């Protein structure tokens, strides 16, 4: 088979082998690989007709649907750069991305007059574009694997989103380490990712892993609410479910009973630490493990993962083939096994830079191809535990304290639905403060706060115990569901 250099040609294999096979399941519609490819070519032709050229940035404000998948592939075919963006973002954030990226065109299925975008707009439906009579473009732009193909804006856990570009070569390399190692042969699988195409996790699972291998992918345009998810699980009977800890937690709380997950052979989690309590509840309800892994927008893909048969709950598993990992101390030297350190990563497909952020590029994209992930981990017997973002650590009595073990402890209390721990300052010193969402029917009051402090004192070293407990209706989260602990700090 010819060597691919363009991610716009990602479906070449399935198109050759099984063009009539279902690629996408979207509501009541089935889209075959041939139809998906035809839609991508049509989109490419339309954009070319609008004057879009190689290197132009094209922002996509479309929920997960066949048109979005066609647009991503079509844009990559002509050498432009696809920027899938959450269509539900507040206008100021969308305007920021449009400005920062220098977008030439917005492709959308909604009215965007409020954005006051001065560039060209292409409207589409969920299934296709508004120019059905346009014939598809045949060619692939004759660029190279080093040309930029997509740019994802990382929600991050702090500050303004950053544009993280990836090259064609990055996308072509990415399906390979994870799927064969963790999922096995997926050509006959039906995959449901609750993570959307606007995020690296969703993009990898749906397109670079699922469709590229010839699997069938379920698309859900709406929010990942439990009713919709359970409906899709029963209607389409996927064999692989990829989701995030927050959604797994919501599903266990809204569990309908019955055999909703009977078709699944793999449940995978990424995007945030998977609390042991959530893992165990899921296992009790479904009989299935959740395999946890770790990736990032900068890496595009997962680089650490548990595997079936070697799953160690509470960890993010072992490095995936092709990736090198180092844990370093404050002095930049490697720490020994069993000691926590800041994680550096090297491997295929890492982002070459942050868009328009030379200082942050210099800080994270280090010499010799190493990426400073900003994560703190500890490695024991080849397996890694994620201890949180370096920026979420608290310095308590001279000791670095991760919020995660404190949160895991509090979640064991029967009154706690969810919680986050962040630093607060009392008398000039930093101490852990707990922010708790109680279960329905529970009152979050001073008495419960005291009970939770005692609960932590019985289980954790004293310096890790929260000095205060505040009750919230909900925790502040990014669009991907990551807790924004920096917003709780004071």
């Amino acid at each position, binding site marked *: 088979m010819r060597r691919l250099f363009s991610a716009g040609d990602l479906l070449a294999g399935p198109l050759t082998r099984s063009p009539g096979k279902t690629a996408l399941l979207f509501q009541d519609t089935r889209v075959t690989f041939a139809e998906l490819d035809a839609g991508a070519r049509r989109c490419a032709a339309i954009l070319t007709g609008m004057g879009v050229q190689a290197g132009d940035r094209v922002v996509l404000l479309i929920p997960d649907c066949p048109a979005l998948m066609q647009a991503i592939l079509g844009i990559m075919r002509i050498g432009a750069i696809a920027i899938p963006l959450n269509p539900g973002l507040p206008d100021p954030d969308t305007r920021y991305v449009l400005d920062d990226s220098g977008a030439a065109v917005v492709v959308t299925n909604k009215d965007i007059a409020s954005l006051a975008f001065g560039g060209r707009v292409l409207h589409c439906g969920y299934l296709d574009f508004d120019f059905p009579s346009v014939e598809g473009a045949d060619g692939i732009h004759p660029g190279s694997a080093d040309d930029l193909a997509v740019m994802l804006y990382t929600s991050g856990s702090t500050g303004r989103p950053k544009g993280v570009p990836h090259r064609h070569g990055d996308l072509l390399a990415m399906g390979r380490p994870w799927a064969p190692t963790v999922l096995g042969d997926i050509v006959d699988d039906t995959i449901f990712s609750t993570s959307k195409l606007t995020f690296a996790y969703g993009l990898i699972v749906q397109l670079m892993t699922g469709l590229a291998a010839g699997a069938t992918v379920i698309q859900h345009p709406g929010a990942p609410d439990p009713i919709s998810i359970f409906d899709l699980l029963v209607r389409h009977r996927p064999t692989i479910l990829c989701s995030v800890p927050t959604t797994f937690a919501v599903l266990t709380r809204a569990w309908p009973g019955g055999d909703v997950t009977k078709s699944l052979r793999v449940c995978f989690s990424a995007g945030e630490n998977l609390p042991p309590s959530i893992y165990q509840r899921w296992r009790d309800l479904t009989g299935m493990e959740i395999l946890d892994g770790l990736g990032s927008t900068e890496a595009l893909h997962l680089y650490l993962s548990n595997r079936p048969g070697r799953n160690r709950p509470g960890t993010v598993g072992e490095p995936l083939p092709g990736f090198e990992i180092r844990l370093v101390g404050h002095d930049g030297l490697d720490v020994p096994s069993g000691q926590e350190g800041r994680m550096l990563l090297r491997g295929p497909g890492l982002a070459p830079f942050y868009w328009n952020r030379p200082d942050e590029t210099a800080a994270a994209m280090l010499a010799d191809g190493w990426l400073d992930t900003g994560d703190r981990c500890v490695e024991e017997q080849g397996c890694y535990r994620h201890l949180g973002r370096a920026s979420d650590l608290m310095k308590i*009595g001279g000791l670095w304290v991760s919020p995660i073990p404190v949160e895991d402890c509090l979640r064991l209390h029967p009154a706690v639905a969810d919680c986050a721990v962040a630093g607060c300052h*009392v*008398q000039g010193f930093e101490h852990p403060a707990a922010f708790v969402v109680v279960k329905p029917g529970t009152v979050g009051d001073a008495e419960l706060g*005291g009970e939770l*402090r005692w609960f932590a004192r019985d289980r954790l070293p*004293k310096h890790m*115990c929260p*000095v*205060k407990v505040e009750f919230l209706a909900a925790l502040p989260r990014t669009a991907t569901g990551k807790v924004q602990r920096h917003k709780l700090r004071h």
Partner: protein
Amino acid sequence: MKVTQKQILKLLVDNGVDQKLVSKLKPDVSLTAQGLDSVDYPVVIVAIKEKFGIAITDKEAAEIKTLQDFEKRLNR
């Protein structure tokens, strides 16, 4: 409303300070000398703010050494 030493002692226990330690506290002896440590102190400062609405400044906290000092400050 007057805050009593008994209320302050209950506050300590309710907020995670060891009950045995609290039961033995002498009102006119330094709390640190009697076992309240650097983690107990901030718990108490925060609990006082939550329960009585009284914000103890850093300067005041540095000068509050005994149970009697706390009682005096809270009833100022």
